[in-house]
């Protein structure tokens, strides 16, 4: 079955964003996945015909990148980080728990077609370890119990909201966003999770700021007078030490 004419239009639209059309190939393959549920031979042919490439050239690209799947992906993609830090913090246990619970191996889909489970590499959220991704949305500070509940909720179709992100749609809808089509969910979720602002909050408490920045110190006196006093004292002490050192 070949792709619908509308999909071809969108593939051309993606290619048209770039000075050279071939640059659109990665987002085009994301679009193919959102329409087809995987990178299909028809999808490869479509990209090839839009870009004037051979199917072999497109396949060569599609097989290089881990996010492109040649077999059908479930409604949701669940990725458990098992790179060193997350693994040590419990990612290995979470992955083992989900494998057993879902009765699948790595990169396999449950019998009901709801969940594809995969162990993934570092997803740049190490301060929230162990991390699980659902359709590439962050689920922070997971445990075997929370991850187990998460996949139950996904399978039952209950509403699931990312720790830092939007409510979960589906893997295919996520792939459409990656292809460059906005889904209107940008304003969901917070700006930052607690670990992202832990240094900022500490700086505010202690009245620390970059030179010339009064922004941080404004709120401090009402909030944490003791901390400020303490910080000032310790800073004064360290400055004294520094001065003494430079006198030498």
């Amino acid at each position, binding site marked *: 079955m070949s792709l619908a004419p509308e999909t071809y239009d969108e593939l051309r639209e993606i290619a048209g964003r770039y*000075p050279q059309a071939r*640059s659109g190939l*990665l*987002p085009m393959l*994301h679009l193919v996945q959102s329409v087809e549920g995987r990178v299909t031979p028809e999808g490869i042919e479509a990209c090839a015909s839009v870009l004037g490439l051979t199917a072999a050239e497109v396949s060569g*690209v599609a097989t*290089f*990148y881990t*996010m*492109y799947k040649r077999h059908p992906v479930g409604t949701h993609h669940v990725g458990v980080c098992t*790179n*060193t*830090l997350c693994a*040590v*913090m*419990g990612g290995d*246990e979470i992955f083992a728990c989900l494998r057993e619970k879902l009765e699948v191996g790595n990169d396999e889909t449950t019998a009901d077609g709801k969940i594809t489970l995969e162990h*993934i*590499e*570092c*997803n*740049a959220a*190490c301060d929230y*370890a*162990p991390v699980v*991704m659902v359709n*590439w949305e*962050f689920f*922070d*500070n997971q*445990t075997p119990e929370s991850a187990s*509940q998460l996949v139950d*909720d996904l399978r039952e179709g209950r509403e699931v909201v990312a720790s830092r992100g*939007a409510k979960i749609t589906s893997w295919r809808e*996520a792939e459409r*966003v*990656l292809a*460059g089509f*906005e889904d209107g969910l*940008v*304003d969901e979720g917070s*700006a*930052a999770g607690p*670990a*992202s*602002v*832990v*240094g*900022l909050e500490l*700086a505010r408490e*202690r*009245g*620390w*700021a*970059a*030179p010339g*920045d009064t*922004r*941080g110190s404004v709120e401090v006196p009402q909030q944490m007078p003791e901390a400020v006093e303490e910080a000032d004292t310790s*800073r004064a002490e360290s400055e004294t030490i520094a001065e003494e050192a430079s006198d030498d």
Partner: protein
Amino acid sequence: MTDTLTPVLTANWADDRAWTLSAYAEQGGYDALDVALGMSPEEVQTTVKDSGLRGRGGAGFPTGVKWGFLPPPDPENPKPRYLVVNADESEPGTCKDIPLMMASPHTLVEGVIISSYAIRAERAFIYVRGEVLHVIRRLRAAVREAYEAGHLGTDIHGSGYDLELVVHAGAGAYICGEETALLDSLEGRRGQPRLRPPFPAVAGLYASPTVINNAESIASVPAIVKNGADWFAGMGTEKSAGFGIFSLSGHVKKPGQYEAPLGITLRELIDLAGGVREGHELKFWTPGGSSTPLFTDEHLDVPLDFEGVQAAGSMLGTRALQIFDDSVCVVRAVLRWTEFYKHESCGKCTPCREGTWWLVQVLERLEKGDGEPGDLDLLLDQCDNILGRSFCALGDGATSPITSSIKYFRDEYLAHLEHGGCPFDARKSTAWADPVVEPVETTPEEAVAHD
């Protein structure tokens, strides 16, 4: 004296709807763009050069100097120039650019516009890894808002300067963080590194002059332009100027992002983070991601700037400080990183493609207790055949955790042979093994309750 922490890039992350243009503009966002457009491109370049800003993606090359490598415009053969932002943050342990782009994508977008103006590029790309859906939403919306407000497009702020910016999502390949592999990927090819020379400054994207900078480097540019080169150079150390985001993860009480002048020490940072997990001690850590040689508790007072870390035998890298306490088996940790390099090796060169497979095999049998003492020398020999002989830094990076861990923890490798397997209990390292840490729940609010 500069304060211990200096939030600049992180300063607005706790603001209400910080990702929107209105919230960013309220904090003086896009003022720096006007300052820059009031200067000549050369003056902006000079400001960035004089600030001493060095690449925040790991290598630490001076950003302004890199810009200066672009050949002068040739009227005979006018080729477009490109700015490409490397937002493919994938080095294990590195987690600074992703929260930056999630919370304040406009900081990066403003940096892209100013930097493109400085190098006279009329097209720019943000290459962001594909596995971060919400970050990509935020970036795209920020770019759309910037176009609507006239910060992007034609005749920006009435200056006559034009710029087009595309957000490009990758598809899962660590190697695309290597700048020439990134360019191949952005051209719609397999992401494999290119032979240099020619360097990207001469023949980069579409064989045109191209500057590639890390997202944090570019995001630092608006503050430098607004506050001046001296302001930036006044922070940090003599050769490692300014501030950077330090990402603490693992066995500390308060993991997270700490923005500080370069030169802060891990001792200070761990102190700010509430100390190492209760009842445990620091065992080993990475100063800048898994590709930088491991440090131990001997290195707590090493100044975390480019020179200080190098002098102590490692690299500042991306300031990805992964903290492992005494419950963690170093062999298990190193094996897992090595499996990562094996998985991510692009296959272009033999030392890395074959070498990483051999490394995994030897490490696996050592971890299981099936190896022999000579395996340690075998590993070092294999590393010697990869380091400096592979096509790009991925192969070199793969050897770092192995050689450094054998240097500091040889006995622990041997203990696996004596013990007939791993002498550690992996369950004791988990986030929930610590009796002080509250068990976490599934809701976002509760998921971080152990803070």
